């Protein structure tokens, strides 16, 4: 390997979305050298696509009056169906307001309170206080007792990411984009960096670091219909799982967002319902109040998604040549509101569906959206199993979200998590002793080179895209919103078979495999994606209860006696299934109870 392909740094951060960049900033501010790797230029990260907002209990707008970290804490724990780590949730809610204000200080143009009366979509008139005039305002989101979601129109992720990256540029932090980490370098107890493949040249690189942070986001693209960006293939989770010693937590906890637009599955923000939008069925009847009289369209996402699926099962879905769907109606919010506060989604409707939401209904259906599970870490971000490895954001199981994440808590987690984990990273680096493990680095590099050569030289084998499609369809059909034992067993069997076949892929682009060949990239990722798919399905099969987004039709109740615990999946060498272990969930403040919405509240 060329010497310029070897890089040595204090901290290696894999992923340049909000969580990775925030952690990198913290380490850089403490004087450490940081290199950030990213599949794409940082401002193209999936964080940018977050529309709705970021929860923090500032309590500035009148509908947020009386809000506090305590109220935010209770909402988050109930939302998680008591699956979250309450110490993490407590730390998070206390820091979220600081995070919002720091992002303001760095340049995010948060929408502001405008004193005076204002008429809401349902006709109620509210009065914003003059004392709070020009402070950061918030909108309503699902599963929250107060209006707590701070926003910039419906481009919140965009403004946050651009502002965060402006600080990365200002501090001169090195970013190597189009660089994919394909293996962690480790000796079973300590992590020493990563082997990467350059997506410009196809060459392998090694990064040797005192600490390595995984911040690669979710795995949404394992599913055939996902709101996620195409880069969200769980690459960071894969390389952690491949170590054999780092566990992934709660992989069966998969969030489906109520409103993906049909048929491109692009996200229509929860802000559309938060701002007063309705869900209608084929008779244009607003059905959510029938199921959820109190929270209506704004129960937590898992509950709304299930109610929608149930309503379609009852025959109230709208038929289309793609999938059955329901309608999202925002017409009554008015042209001005739609074209300012919901402009990006209005553009999506116009550009992709030829619909003007000012006058027309939007076809929506619950769509895979978020991975609550991920690399299991301690409260400070240290990954279990390997010293010197950290994880943050959606790729981590910190565990703020348990079995269901509240809307607006993911952007908040990226930044608050980035602050907390970045702080730990900085402290860890200051005390870290380090010896360059030359032999280990060579071994790992050779392993990856051999793996690549084997794929390229394989004369006859499987088609990577075909296998991937089968995986996507299997998860979508059998490991979706409603799950049952039989489907899950079938899914596990199909995925196991696919996993074995994925080790025998041969490339169709013969002769043209030099450089950043996209088929080779897909072939290298697929076995890891199937491992993640198996962690999800096998975890879901084994968990014989319903909690948050994990809903078993054959076990429809939450079972705190047997299942108030977190799944930990590890992958042993030469196995085709994960090993599942469980740890109990510590209840430090709020004992399990009724969420106040959803099936339990109505006894059905």
């Amino acid at each position, binding site marked *: 390997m060329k010497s310029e392909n070897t890089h040595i740094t204090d901290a290696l951060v894999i992923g340049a979305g909000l969580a990775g960049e925030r952690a990198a900033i913290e380490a850089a501010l403490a004087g450490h050298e940081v290199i950030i790797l990213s599949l794409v230029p940082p401002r193209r990260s999936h964080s940018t696509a977050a529309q709705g907002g970021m929860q923090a209990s500032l309590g500035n707008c009148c509908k947020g009056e009386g809000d506090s970290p305590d109220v935010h804490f209770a909402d988050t724990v109930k939302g998680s169906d008591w699956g979250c780590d309450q110490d993490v949730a407590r730390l998070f809610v206390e820091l979220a307001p600081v995070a919002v204000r720091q992002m303001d200080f760095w340049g995010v143009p948060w929408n502001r309170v405008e004193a005076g009366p204002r008429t809401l979509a349902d006709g109620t008139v509210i009065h914003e206080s003059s004392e709070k005039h020009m402070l950061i305002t918030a909108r309503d989101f699902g599963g929250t007792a107060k209006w707590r979601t701070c926003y910039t129109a419906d481009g919140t992720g965009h403004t946050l990411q651009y502002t965060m990256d402006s600080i990365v*540029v200002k501090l001169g932090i090195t970013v190597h984009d189009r660089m994919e980490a394909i293996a962690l370098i480790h000796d079973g107890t300590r992590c020493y960096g990563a082997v990467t493949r350059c997506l410009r040249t196809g060459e392998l690189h090694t990064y040797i670091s005192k600490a390595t942070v995984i911040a690669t986001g979710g795995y949404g693209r394992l599913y055939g219909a996902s709101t996620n960006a195409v880069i969200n293939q769980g690459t960071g989770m894969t390389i952690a799982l491949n170590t054999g010693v780092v566990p992934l937590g709660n992989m069966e906890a998969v969030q489906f967002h109520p409103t993906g637009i049909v048929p491109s599955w692009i996200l229509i923000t929860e802000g559309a319902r938060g701002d007063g939008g309705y869900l209608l069925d084929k008779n244009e009847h607003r059905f959510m109040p029938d199921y959820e009289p109190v929270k209506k369209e704004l129960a937590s996402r898992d509950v709304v998604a299930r109610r929608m699926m149930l309503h379609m099962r009852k025959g109230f879905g709208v038929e289309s040549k793609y999938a059955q769907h329901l309608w999202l109606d925002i017409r009554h919010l008015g042209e001005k509101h739609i074209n300012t506060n919901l402009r990006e989604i209005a553009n999506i409707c116009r550009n992709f569906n030829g619909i003007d939401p000012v006058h027309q209904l939007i076809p929506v259906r619950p769509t895979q959206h978020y991975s609550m599970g991920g690399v299991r870490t301690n409260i400070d971000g240290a990954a279990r199993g390997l010293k010197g490895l950290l994880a943050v954001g959606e790729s981590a199981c910190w565990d703020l979200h348990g079995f269901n994440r509240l809307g607006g808590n993911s952007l908040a987690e990226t930044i608050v998590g980035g602050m907390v984990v970045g702080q730990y990273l900085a402290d860890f680096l200051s005390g870290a002793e380090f010896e360059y493990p030359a032999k280990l680095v060579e071994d790992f590099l050779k392993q990856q080179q051999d793996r690549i050569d084997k794929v390229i030289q394989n004369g006859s084998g499987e088609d990577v895209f075909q296998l991937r499609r089968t995986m996507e369809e299997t998860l979508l059909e059998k490991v979706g919103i409603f799950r049952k034992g039989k489907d899950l067993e079938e899914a596990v069997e199909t995925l196991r078979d696919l996993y074995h076949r994925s080790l025998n892929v041969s490339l169709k682009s013969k002769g043209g495999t030099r450089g950043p060949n996209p*088929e080779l990239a897909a072939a290298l990722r697929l076995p890891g994606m199937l491992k993640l798919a198996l962690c999800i399905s096998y975890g879901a099969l084994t968990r014989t209860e319903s909690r948050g987004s994990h809903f078993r039709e054959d076990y429809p109740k939450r079972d705190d006696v047997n299942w108030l615990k977190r799944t930990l999946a590890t992958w042993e060498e030469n196995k085709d299934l994960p090993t599942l272990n469980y740890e109990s969930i510590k209840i430090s403040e709020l004992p399990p109870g009724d969420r106040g919405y959803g099936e339990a509240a109505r006894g059905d």
Partner: protein
Amino acid sequence: MSRMLSFEIFRYNPNEPKVKPRMQQYSLDETDGMTLFVALNRIREEQDPSLMFDFVCRAAICGSCAMLVNGKPKLACRTLAKDMPNKITLMPLPVFKLVGDLSVDTGTWFRGMNLKTESWIHTERRFDPKACELPMSNEDALKIYEADRCIECGCCIAGCATANIREDFLGAAGLNRIARFMVDPRDERKNADYFEVVGTDEGAFGCVGLMACDDNCPMELPLQMQLSFVRRKMAMHGLGIKR
């Protein structure tokens, strides 16, 4: 019967310099609601897995997929096949360094622009985690957001005559970025601070007024207005007019 679309796509892999740049033909049946995102992925998966192109969000939010579609810079993800003629020619964006086929390196260009324009809030204040945020009018916040909506896709740069001729031109994206910080009350820079960067041919005075940027911007940013705004400020500074 669905329409057969004929694609003519630029091919060149800088890692295989012996194979010269060329145009390659592909045919594909049009499906309902087909975008160029769908079409290009089908071509890759069904016909030619070595074809390089960039998509990330496929929702016109991230700015990754700009390319020349029948000669015009556009976001491929939101270009619908039904709005296109039977023959579709795809070329990579000019100005930016070619990664391969339709993929270009916009990231490096934009990081350079952000560095040159120092695209971050300049302030002497220090962040106090215990303090309340500084008040700002919602109107100001919206004005900043308006300019902050740029997704750095590069369409304005690729379509710009000046940017195609001179490498150091900041282009509409750069000038819009300057305007974004000029309207931000939190940024303490004065007109004089911007003058060195923007008050030259590399900046506001390099534009020759063809306004392709304004026509090509997929976010419909008022780039022409932003240019005049920055120019006016720079001209006033240059002439010593204080206001």
